[in-house]
């Protein structure tokens, strides 16, 4: 009985050691908050509630971006937010977010400019 307990303890200690050896990590590069989980929930069951939850997760991730190794907003977060605004018809706020995305990440400029142009063209049409 005693030996079994000892063996079990030793095994647990070993597992703990091995796990810590392979996966000890510093602070993550970005603070995503609950983004991934909310994205999954929205995908699993699309509803006004899950969509709002996702938006809130994105906003949280942006607001708390400095709590990360890069202190930067994660890639795609402003684009995601802008796209939500766009779908909600808030085109000014959408453009504002797309500009923020490409300011932080010049890699996105081509795509963001394309989105902004799309909005401008669409608005031009509605003004006619």
């Amino acid at each position, binding site marked *: 009985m005693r030996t079994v307990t000892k063996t079990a303890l030793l*095994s*647990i200690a*070993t*597992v703990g050691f*091995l796990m810590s*050896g*392979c996966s000890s990590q510093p602070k*993550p*590069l*970005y603070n*995503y908050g609950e*983004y*991934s989980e909310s*994205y*999954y929930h929205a*995908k*699993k069951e699309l509803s006004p509630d899950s969509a709002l939850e996702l938006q809130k997760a994105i906003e949280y991730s942006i607001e708390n971006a400095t709590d990360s190794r*890069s202190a930067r907003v*994660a*890639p*795609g*977060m402003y*684009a*995601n937010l802008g*796209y939500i605004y766009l779908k909600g018809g808030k085109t000014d706020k959408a453009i504002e977010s797309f500009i923020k995305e490409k300011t932080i*990440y010049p*890699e*996105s*400029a*081509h*795509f963001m400019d*394309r989105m902004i142009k799309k909005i401008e063209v669409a608005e031009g049409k509605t003004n006619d």
Partner: protein
Amino acid sequence: MINTKLLTLLTLITSMFILSGCGASYVTKGTEFPKMYEQAPRSILILPPMNESTDAEAKDYYMTTTEMPFALMGYYTFPTEMVSDIMKQEGVYDTEVLYNMPLDKYYEYFGADAVLFTRIKKWDVSYMVLASSLTISIEAKIVSTKTSEELWTYTGTVVVDLSGGNSGGGIGGLIAKAIVAAVNTATADYVQHARTANRKIIHTLPFGPYHELHLKDQGIKLVDQTPVQK
């Protein structure tokens, strides 16, 4: 005499311990994926996964797991959901079409340096007489939009023993037992295990421009990820 025996035993135990710690290494990132360092892509366009598994829902669920790990490796990742939506608006609904599109189109439209293709090879639970197991297998590939060359590829497989009870002792058994409790509500856990498969894949990827180790990790040894045959 006794000392020699003891020493041998100690050496054996130590080497086993080290080997079991992180697995045997065969190659380095630099020798395995030289093109990744030559081209040094800054941005990755993550396309919706190609689902080759028997689970129809796997595609949507797996899609929510890829953006974060690739961004955390230091690449600019285009927002997956938005990209997928935009492609649909452009009339491309079929993943097959996306995967066969000329790669320079992705540079033209998004300005992406590279595209990530993922294939869900397996995403299923198999029930057997004495045991059941969950297998998730993902193949990932990064291809240049400028030269159409494959820059990096890796496959991650996760096999989780769902049988609980007597799973044979040893470290594997202990871990499996610990996981068992969480494997009852299917889909959420599938995603959890898909993330584990992603971790296996992602650690072989050279770091991107937003990471401190960008172009400094050629010497990192890669762990053998050959899946255990069951």
